[in-house]
Protein backbone atom coordinates (compact mmCIF):
# COMPACT_ATOMS: atom_id res chain seq x y z
CA UNK A 1 0.00 0.00 0.00
CA UNK A 2 0.95 3.59 -0.50
CA UNK A 3 2.16 6.06 2.10
CA UNK A 4 -0.95 8.13 1.43
CA UNK A 5 -2.49 9.45 4.66
CA UNK A 6 -5.49 7.29 5.53
CA UNK A 7 -9.01 8.56 5.04
CA UNK A 8 -12.50 7.12 5.32
CA UNK A 9 -15.31 8.74 3.36
CA UNK A 10 -18.97 7.80 3.88
CA UNK A 11 -20.95 7.62 0.64
CA UNK A 12 -24.67 8.35 1.15
CA UNK A 13 -26.83 5.20 1.16
CA UNK A 14 -23.67 3.22 0.49
CA UNK A 15 -20.33 1.99 1.78
CA UNK A 16 -17.36 3.68 3.44
CA UNK A 17 -14.52 4.30 1.01
CA UNK A 18 -11.12 3.69 2.54
CA UNK A 19 -8.04 5.26 1.02
CA UNK A 20 -4.45 5.33 2.21
CA UNK A 21 -2.17 3.18 4.28
CA UNK A 22 -4.39 1.18 6.63
CA UNK A 23 -4.07 -2.46 7.58
CA UNK A 24 -7.32 -4.45 7.66
CA UNK A 25 -7.47 -7.28 10.19
CA UNK A 26 -9.91 -10.07 11.01
CA UNK A 27 -11.23 -10.48 14.55
CA UNK A 28 -8.40 -12.99 15.03
CA UNK A 29 -5.86 -10.38 14.05
CA UNK A 30 -5.09 -11.89 10.67
CA UNK A 31 -4.30 -9.54 7.85
CA UNK A 32 -6.97 -9.14 5.14
CA UNK A 33 -5.47 -8.67 1.71
CA UNK A 34 -6.35 -5.37 0.04
CA UNK A 35 -6.46 -5.98 -3.68
CA UNK A 36 -6.88 -2.34 -4.65
CA UNK A 37 -5.77 1.08 -3.60
CA UNK A 38 -9.27 2.32 -2.75
CA UNK A 39 -11.62 -0.17 -1.10
CA UNK A 40 -15.32 0.06 -0.18
CA UNK A 41 -16.22 -1.25 3.29
CA UNK A 42 -19.68 -2.71 3.84
CA UNK A 43 -21.91 -0.43 5.91
CA UNK A 44 -25.28 -2.18 5.56
CA UNK A 45 -24.15 -5.53 6.95
CA UNK A 46 -25.47 -7.52 4.00
CA UNK A 47 -22.38 -7.94 1.82
CA UNK A 48 -21.34 -11.48 0.93
CA UNK A 49 -17.68 -10.39 0.70
CA UNK A 50 -17.32 -8.55 4.02
CA UNK A 51 -15.51 -6.46 5.05
CA UNK A 52 -15.83 -5.26 1.46
CA UNK A 53 -18.98 -3.92 -0.19
CA UNK A 54 -20.60 -5.99 -2.98
CA UNK A 55 -23.38 -3.56 -3.90
CA UNK A 56 -26.12 -5.49 -2.07
CA UNK A 57 -27.15 -2.38 -0.12
CA UNK A 58 -28.82 -1.05 -3.26
CA UNK A 59 -31.22 -3.96 -3.69
CA UNK A 60 -31.88 -3.93 0.07
CA UNK A 61 -32.85 -0.24 0.06
CA UNK A 62 -30.21 0.67 2.67
CA UNK A 63 -30.46 4.37 3.63
CA UNK A 64 -28.12 6.63 5.57
CA UNK A 65 -28.74 10.09 6.92
CA UNK A 66 -25.76 11.84 5.36
Amino acid at each position, binding site marked *: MSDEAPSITP*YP*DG*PLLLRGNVELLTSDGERIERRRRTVALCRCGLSAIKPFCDGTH*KAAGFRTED
Partner: protein
Amino acid sequence: MPAQPLTELSLSVRSDTHVQARGPLSEAVLRALTGGRDAEGLSALASNAVERAVNVTHDDDLQLALFVLYASSYGSLETLDPTQEWNPDLIEARRTIERAFEQELRERVPLPDLPEPTVDDVARALFALTAEDGGPSLSRYLAKRATGQQALEFLVQRSIYTLREADPHSWAIPRLTGRPKAALVEIQSDEYGGGRPDRVHAEVFAKTMRGAGLDATYGAYVNAVPAVTLASQNMMSMLGLNRRLLGAIVGHLAAFEMTSSIPNRMYGDGFRRLGYGDDVTDYFDEHVEADAVHEQIAGRDLAGSLAEDRPGLLPDIMFGAAACLTVDGWVAEHLLSSFERGVSSLREGYPL
Protein backbone atom coordinates in the same frame (compact mmCIF):
# COMPACT_ATOMS: atom_id res chain seq x y z
CA MET B 1 -30.25 -14.00 -41.33
CA PRO B 2 -31.78 -17.28 -40.14
CA ALA B 3 -30.82 -17.98 -36.56
CA GLN B 4 -28.75 -21.07 -36.09
CA PRO B 5 -30.08 -23.75 -33.76
CA LEU B 6 -27.79 -24.65 -30.89
CA THR B 7 -27.04 -28.21 -30.00
CA GLU B 8 -25.20 -29.42 -26.97
CA LEU B 9 -22.68 -30.97 -29.32
CA SER B 10 -21.54 -27.56 -30.51
CA LEU B 11 -19.24 -26.22 -27.85
CA SER B 12 -17.08 -23.75 -29.62
CA VAL B 13 -17.10 -20.55 -31.62
CA ARG B 14 -15.20 -19.92 -34.82
CA SER B 15 -12.45 -17.32 -34.38
CA ASP B 16 -11.05 -15.37 -37.27
CA THR B 17 -8.80 -12.31 -37.11
CA HIS B 18 -9.50 -11.32 -40.72
CA VAL B 19 -12.45 -8.92 -40.43
CA GLN B 20 -15.09 -9.64 -43.09
CA ALA B 21 -17.02 -6.76 -44.68
CA ARG B 22 -20.80 -6.69 -44.19
CA GLY B 23 -21.67 -4.39 -47.11
CA PRO B 24 -20.23 -1.77 -49.48
CA LEU B 25 -19.34 0.79 -46.81
CA SER B 26 -17.53 -1.54 -44.43
CA GLU B 27 -15.77 -3.08 -47.41
CA ALA B 28 -14.52 0.34 -48.56
CA VAL B 29 -13.44 1.30 -45.02
CA LEU B 30 -11.56 -1.96 -44.57
CA ARG B 31 -9.80 -1.56 -47.94
CA ALA B 32 -8.86 2.06 -47.24
CA LEU B 33 -7.42 1.15 -43.84
CA THR B 34 -5.51 -1.86 -45.06
CA GLY B 35 -3.89 0.00 -47.94
CA GLY B 36 -5.79 -1.54 -50.79
CA ARG B 37 -7.91 1.39 -51.88
CA ASP B 38 -8.08 5.17 -51.91
CA ALA B 39 -10.52 6.53 -49.36
CA GLU B 40 -11.93 9.12 -51.78
CA GLY B 41 -15.67 8.77 -52.30
CA LEU B 42 -16.12 7.11 -48.93
CA SER B 43 -18.20 9.98 -47.66
CA ALA B 44 -20.79 9.41 -50.41
CA LEU B 45 -20.81 5.70 -49.63
CA ALA B 46 -21.36 6.55 -45.96
CA SER B 47 -24.24 8.92 -46.81
CA ASN B 48 -25.86 6.24 -48.98
CA ALA B 49 -25.50 3.64 -46.26
CA VAL B 50 -27.03 6.01 -43.69
CA GLU B 51 -29.97 6.84 -45.99
CA ARG B 52 -30.56 3.17 -46.72
CA ALA B 53 -30.48 2.11 -43.07
CA VAL B 54 -33.82 1.51 -41.37
CA ASN B 55 -32.18 1.29 -37.97
CA VAL B 56 -28.60 2.46 -37.50
CA THR B 57 -28.06 0.45 -34.30
CA HIS B 58 -28.94 -2.82 -36.01
CA ASP B 59 -27.33 -2.11 -39.40
CA ASP B 60 -24.41 -4.50 -39.90
CA ASP B 61 -22.64 -2.49 -42.61
CA LEU B 62 -22.79 0.82 -40.69
CA GLN B 63 -21.85 -0.62 -37.32
CA LEU B 64 -18.95 -2.65 -38.68
CA ALA B 65 -17.65 0.35 -40.69
CA LEU B 66 -17.83 2.50 -37.55
CA PHE B 67 -16.21 -0.20 -35.43
CA VAL B 68 -13.27 -0.47 -37.84
CA LEU B 69 -12.89 3.33 -38.01
CA TYR B 70 -12.69 3.47 -34.22
CA ALA B 71 -10.36 0.47 -34.12
CA SER B 72 -8.05 2.63 -36.22
CA SER B 73 -7.94 5.19 -33.38
CA TYR B 74 -7.51 2.60 -30.63
CA GLY B 75 -4.93 0.66 -32.61
CA SER B 76 -6.82 -2.45 -31.55
CA LEU B 77 -6.67 -4.30 -34.88
CA GLU B 78 -3.13 -4.89 -36.08
CA THR B 79 -3.91 -4.97 -39.78
CA LEU B 80 -5.06 -1.32 -39.91
CA ASP B 81 -2.54 1.12 -41.41
CA PRO B 82 -1.53 3.71 -38.75
CA THR B 83 -0.77 6.35 -41.43
CA GLN B 84 -4.48 6.41 -42.35
CA GLU B 85 -5.72 7.28 -38.86
CA TRP B 86 -6.38 10.94 -39.71
CA ASN B 87 -7.23 10.50 -43.39
CA PRO B 88 -9.85 13.27 -43.88
CA ASP B 89 -12.07 11.08 -46.08
CA LEU B 90 -12.17 8.43 -43.36
CA ILE B 91 -12.87 11.06 -40.69
CA GLU B 92 -15.67 12.49 -42.82
CA ALA B 93 -17.20 9.03 -43.26
CA ARG B 94 -16.98 8.50 -39.51
CA ARG B 95 -18.72 11.83 -38.86
CA THR B 96 -21.51 10.94 -41.27
CA ILE B 97 -22.20 7.63 -39.49
CA GLU B 98 -21.85 9.24 -36.06
CA ARG B 99 -24.41 11.95 -36.89
CA ALA B 100 -27.00 9.33 -37.84
CA PHE B 101 -26.14 7.07 -34.90
CA GLU B 102 -26.27 9.88 -32.34
CA GLN B 103 -29.54 11.18 -33.77
CA GLU B 104 -31.09 7.74 -33.50
CA LEU B 105 -29.91 7.37 -29.90
CA ARG B 106 -31.23 10.82 -28.97
CA GLU B 107 -34.62 9.82 -30.41
CA ARG B 108 -34.84 6.36 -28.90
CA VAL B 109 -33.26 6.71 -25.45
CA PRO B 110 -35.83 7.76 -22.82
CA LEU B 111 -34.48 10.64 -20.74
CA PRO B 112 -35.06 10.92 -16.98
CA ASP B 113 -35.97 14.20 -15.29
CA LEU B 114 -32.89 16.31 -14.64
CA PRO B 115 -31.67 16.56 -11.05
CA GLU B 116 -30.15 19.73 -9.60
CA PRO B 117 -26.51 20.05 -10.67
CA THR B 118 -25.08 19.12 -7.27
CA VAL B 119 -22.90 16.18 -6.30
CA ASP B 120 -25.60 14.76 -4.06
CA ASP B 121 -28.58 15.16 -6.37
CA VAL B 122 -26.77 13.86 -9.45
CA ALA B 123 -25.42 10.77 -7.68
CA ARG B 124 -28.85 10.00 -6.21
CA ALA B 125 -30.53 10.48 -9.60
CA LEU B 126 -28.02 8.14 -11.28
CA PHE B 127 -28.47 5.45 -8.62
CA ALA B 128 -32.28 5.82 -8.90
CA LEU B 129 -32.16 5.58 -12.70
CA THR B 130 -29.99 2.46 -12.69
CA ALA B 131 -32.04 0.85 -9.89
CA GLU B 132 -35.28 1.07 -11.86
CA ASP B 133 -33.66 -0.36 -14.98
CA GLY B 134 -36.20 -3.04 -15.80
CA GLY B 135 -34.16 -4.63 -18.59
CA PRO B 136 -34.10 -8.38 -19.10
CA SER B 137 -31.98 -10.19 -16.58
CA LEU B 138 -29.26 -11.83 -18.58
CA SER B 139 -27.26 -12.29 -15.38
CA ARG B 140 -30.01 -14.32 -13.73
CA TYR B 141 -30.26 -16.50 -16.85
CA LEU B 142 -26.49 -17.08 -16.85
CA ALA B 143 -26.54 -17.93 -13.13
CA LYS B 144 -29.39 -20.43 -13.29
CA ARG B 145 -30.05 -21.75 -16.77
CA ALA B 146 -27.42 -21.07 -19.46
CA THR B 147 -25.91 -24.06 -21.25
CA GLY B 148 -22.17 -24.41 -21.81
CA GLN B 149 -22.46 -23.09 -25.36
CA GLN B 150 -24.59 -20.13 -24.27
CA ALA B 151 -21.99 -19.24 -21.62
CA LEU B 152 -19.27 -19.30 -24.29
CA GLU B 153 -21.38 -17.08 -26.54
CA PHE B 154 -21.79 -14.66 -23.65
CA LEU B 155 -17.98 -14.41 -23.33
CA VAL B 156 -17.62 -13.93 -27.09
CA GLN B 157 -20.22 -11.14 -27.11
CA ARG B 158 -18.52 -9.47 -24.13
CA SER B 159 -15.05 -9.76 -25.64
CA ILE B 160 -15.63 -6.88 -28.09
CA TYR B 161 -15.56 -4.46 -25.17
CA THR B 162 -13.92 -6.37 -22.36
CA LEU B 163 -10.65 -7.28 -24.07
CA ARG B 164 -10.24 -3.48 -24.28
CA GLU B 165 -12.01 -2.81 -21.00
CA ALA B 166 -11.98 0.81 -19.77
CA ASP B 167 -10.37 2.22 -22.92
CA PRO B 168 -13.41 4.10 -24.31
CA HIS B 169 -13.80 6.10 -21.09
CA SER B 170 -10.09 6.93 -20.90
CA TRP B 171 -10.50 9.33 -23.84
CA ALA B 172 -12.23 11.66 -21.34
CA ILE B 173 -9.22 12.03 -19.01
CA PRO B 174 -7.47 14.98 -20.73
CA ARG B 175 -10.81 16.75 -21.21
CA LEU B 176 -11.51 16.90 -17.49
CA THR B 177 -9.85 18.95 -14.76
CA GLY B 178 -9.85 18.95 -10.97
CA ARG B 179 -12.22 16.71 -9.00
CA PRO B 180 -13.83 14.80 -11.88
CA LYS B 181 -10.43 14.17 -13.44
CA ALA B 182 -9.00 12.78 -10.21
CA ALA B 183 -12.09 10.58 -9.85
CA LEU B 184 -11.89 9.17 -13.37
CA VAL B 185 -8.18 8.45 -12.97
CA GLU B 186 -8.84 6.76 -9.64
CA ILE B 187 -11.32 4.42 -11.35
CA GLN B 188 -9.23 3.85 -14.47
CA SER B 189 -6.08 3.19 -12.47
CA ASP B 190 -7.91 0.31 -10.80
CA GLU B 191 -9.26 -0.88 -14.19
CA TYR B 192 -5.69 -0.93 -15.44
CA GLY B 193 -4.44 -3.04 -12.55
CA GLY B 194 -3.05 -0.36 -10.20
CA GLY B 195 0.47 -0.97 -11.49
CA ARG B 196 0.15 -4.76 -11.77
CA PRO B 197 0.02 -5.97 -15.38
CA ASP B 198 -1.62 -9.26 -14.38
CA ARG B 199 -4.50 -7.32 -12.75
CA VAL B 200 -5.34 -5.18 -15.80
CA HIS B 201 -9.04 -6.02 -16.17
CA ALA B 202 -8.73 -6.68 -19.90
CA GLU B 203 -5.95 -9.18 -19.10
CA VAL B 204 -8.00 -10.86 -16.38
CA PHE B 205 -10.79 -11.26 -18.95
CA ALA B 206 -8.32 -12.69 -21.49
CA LYS B 207 -7.47 -15.31 -18.88
CA THR B 208 -11.18 -16.10 -18.53
CA MET B 209 -11.50 -16.57 -22.29
CA ARG B 210 -8.46 -18.83 -22.50
CA GLY B 211 -9.71 -20.81 -19.50
CA ALA B 212 -12.96 -21.40 -21.39
CA GLY B 213 -11.02 -22.55 -24.46
CA LEU B 214 -11.62 -19.35 -26.47
CA ASP B 215 -9.23 -17.18 -28.48
CA ALA B 216 -8.27 -14.06 -26.48
CA THR B 217 -6.79 -12.19 -29.46
CA TYR B 218 -8.57 -8.85 -29.81
CA GLY B 219 -10.96 -8.93 -32.73
CA ALA B 220 -10.93 -12.71 -33.14
CA TYR B 221 -14.72 -12.73 -32.76
CA VAL B 222 -15.69 -9.49 -34.49
CA ASN B 223 -17.10 -11.52 -37.39
CA ALA B 224 -19.17 -13.59 -34.99
CA VAL B 225 -21.13 -10.80 -33.27
CA PRO B 226 -24.23 -8.98 -34.54
CA ALA B 227 -24.54 -5.24 -35.23
CA VAL B 228 -26.11 -4.48 -31.86
CA THR B 229 -23.02 -5.78 -30.01
CA LEU B 230 -20.79 -3.58 -32.14
CA ALA B 231 -23.23 -0.69 -31.54
CA SER B 232 -22.77 -0.95 -27.78
CA GLN B 233 -19.00 -0.67 -28.20
CA ASN B 234 -19.31 2.03 -30.90
CA MET B 235 -21.54 4.15 -28.71
CA MET B 236 -18.85 4.22 -26.01
CA SER B 237 -16.18 5.08 -28.57
CA MET B 238 -18.33 7.85 -30.08
CA LEU B 239 -19.08 9.39 -26.68
CA GLY B 240 -15.44 9.08 -25.65
CA LEU B 241 -13.79 10.37 -28.81
CA ASN B 242 -15.98 13.44 -29.33
CA ARG B 243 -15.14 16.17 -26.85
CA ARG B 244 -18.60 17.74 -27.23
CA LEU B 245 -20.04 14.51 -25.73
CA LEU B 246 -17.90 14.63 -22.57
CA GLY B 247 -20.93 14.69 -20.27
CA ALA B 248 -22.37 11.63 -21.99
CA ILE B 249 -19.26 9.45 -21.66
CA VAL B 250 -19.09 10.35 -17.97
CA GLY B 251 -22.77 9.49 -17.46
CA HIS B 252 -22.23 6.29 -19.40
CA LEU B 253 -19.43 5.18 -17.10
CA ALA B 254 -21.51 5.93 -14.00
CA ALA B 255 -24.43 3.83 -15.25
CA PHE B 256 -22.10 1.08 -16.43
CA GLU B 257 -20.45 0.80 -13.01
CA MET B 258 -23.79 0.99 -11.18
CA THR B 259 -25.16 -2.00 -13.09
CA SER B 260 -22.10 -4.19 -12.70
CA SER B 261 -21.31 -5.55 -9.24
CA ILE B 262 -24.51 -7.54 -8.63
CA PRO B 263 -24.73 -9.01 -12.20
CA ASN B 264 -21.06 -10.00 -12.03
CA ARG B 265 -21.70 -12.06 -8.93
CA MET B 266 -24.38 -13.94 -10.89
CA TYR B 267 -22.14 -14.41 -13.94
CA GLY B 268 -19.48 -15.90 -11.65
CA ASP B 269 -22.12 -18.21 -10.12
CA GLY B 270 -23.16 -19.31 -13.60
CA PHE B 271 -19.64 -20.26 -14.64
CA ARG B 272 -19.10 -22.08 -11.32
CA ARG B 273 -22.37 -23.98 -11.89
CA LEU B 274 -21.02 -25.06 -15.28
CA GLY B 275 -17.90 -26.43 -13.63
CA TYR B 276 -15.37 -23.75 -14.45
CA GLY B 277 -12.62 -22.93 -11.96
CA ASP B 278 -11.06 -19.75 -10.57
CA ASP B 279 -9.15 -19.01 -13.78
CA VAL B 280 -12.50 -18.38 -15.47
CA THR B 281 -14.48 -16.88 -12.58
CA ASP B 282 -11.73 -14.56 -11.27
CA TYR B 283 -12.79 -11.81 -13.69
CA PHE B 284 -16.40 -11.79 -12.43
CA ASP B 285 -15.47 -12.09 -8.75
CA GLU B 286 -12.97 -9.24 -9.14
CA HIS B 287 -15.75 -7.03 -10.54
CA VAL B 288 -18.12 -7.64 -7.65
CA GLU B 289 -15.61 -5.93 -5.36
CA ALA B 290 -14.12 -3.44 -7.82
CA ASP B 291 -17.35 -2.04 -9.22
CA ALA B 292 -18.87 -1.59 -5.77
CA VAL B 293 -16.01 0.91 -5.29
CA HIS B 294 -16.16 2.39 -8.79
CA GLU B 295 -19.90 3.06 -8.75
CA GLN B 296 -19.55 5.29 -5.69
CA ILE B 297 -16.69 7.28 -7.15
CA ALA B 298 -18.38 7.48 -10.56
CA GLY B 299 -21.68 8.70 -9.14
CA ARG B 300 -20.47 11.39 -6.77
CA ASP B 301 -16.88 12.33 -7.45
CA LEU B 302 -16.95 11.99 -11.24
CA ALA B 303 -20.48 12.65 -12.56
CA GLY B 304 -21.68 14.66 -9.56
CA SER B 305 -18.72 16.99 -9.39
CA LEU B 306 -18.62 17.41 -13.18
CA ALA B 307 -22.26 18.54 -13.09
CA GLU B 308 -21.46 20.91 -10.24
CA ASP B 309 -18.43 22.34 -12.05
CA ARG B 310 -20.09 22.50 -15.47
CA PRO B 311 -23.90 22.51 -15.09
CA GLY B 312 -24.30 22.80 -18.86
CA LEU B 313 -23.14 19.17 -19.16
CA LEU B 314 -25.87 17.81 -16.87
CA PRO B 315 -28.37 16.89 -19.64
CA ASP B 316 -25.69 14.88 -21.43
CA ILE B 317 -24.54 13.19 -18.21
CA MET B 318 -28.09 11.87 -17.80
CA PHE B 319 -28.36 11.06 -21.52
CA GLY B 320 -25.14 9.03 -21.43
CA ALA B 321 -26.35 7.08 -18.40
CA ALA B 322 -29.74 6.40 -19.98
CA ALA B 323 -28.10 5.46 -23.30
CA CYS B 324 -25.90 2.91 -21.50
CA LEU B 325 -28.97 1.26 -19.96
CA THR B 326 -30.99 1.34 -23.18
CA VAL B 327 -28.35 0.03 -25.58
CA ASP B 328 -26.96 -2.59 -23.20
CA GLY B 329 -30.58 -3.58 -22.63
CA TRP B 330 -30.94 -4.19 -26.38
CA VAL B 331 -27.83 -6.38 -26.35
CA ALA B 332 -29.07 -8.36 -23.33
CA GLU B 333 -32.49 -8.74 -24.95
CA HIS B 334 -30.86 -10.12 -28.10
CA LEU B 335 -28.90 -12.72 -26.12
CA LEU B 336 -31.79 -13.69 -23.88
CA SER B 337 -34.35 -14.01 -26.66
CA SER B 338 -31.90 -16.10 -28.73
CA PHE B 339 -31.15 -18.37 -25.79
CA GLU B 340 -34.79 -18.75 -24.85
CA ARG B 341 -35.62 -19.78 -28.43
CA GLY B 342 -32.73 -22.26 -28.39
CA VAL B 343 -30.85 -20.49 -31.19
CA SER B 344 -27.40 -18.96 -31.33
CA SER B 345 -26.89 -15.26 -30.49
CA LEU B 346 -24.00 -15.19 -32.95
CA ARG B 347 -24.02 -14.63 -36.70
CA GLU B 348 -24.67 -17.59 -38.90
CA GLY B 349 -21.74 -19.97 -39.25
CA TYR B 350 -19.95 -18.90 -36.06
CA PRO B 351 -21.16 -21.38 -33.48
CA LEU B 352 -19.25 -24.55 -34.33
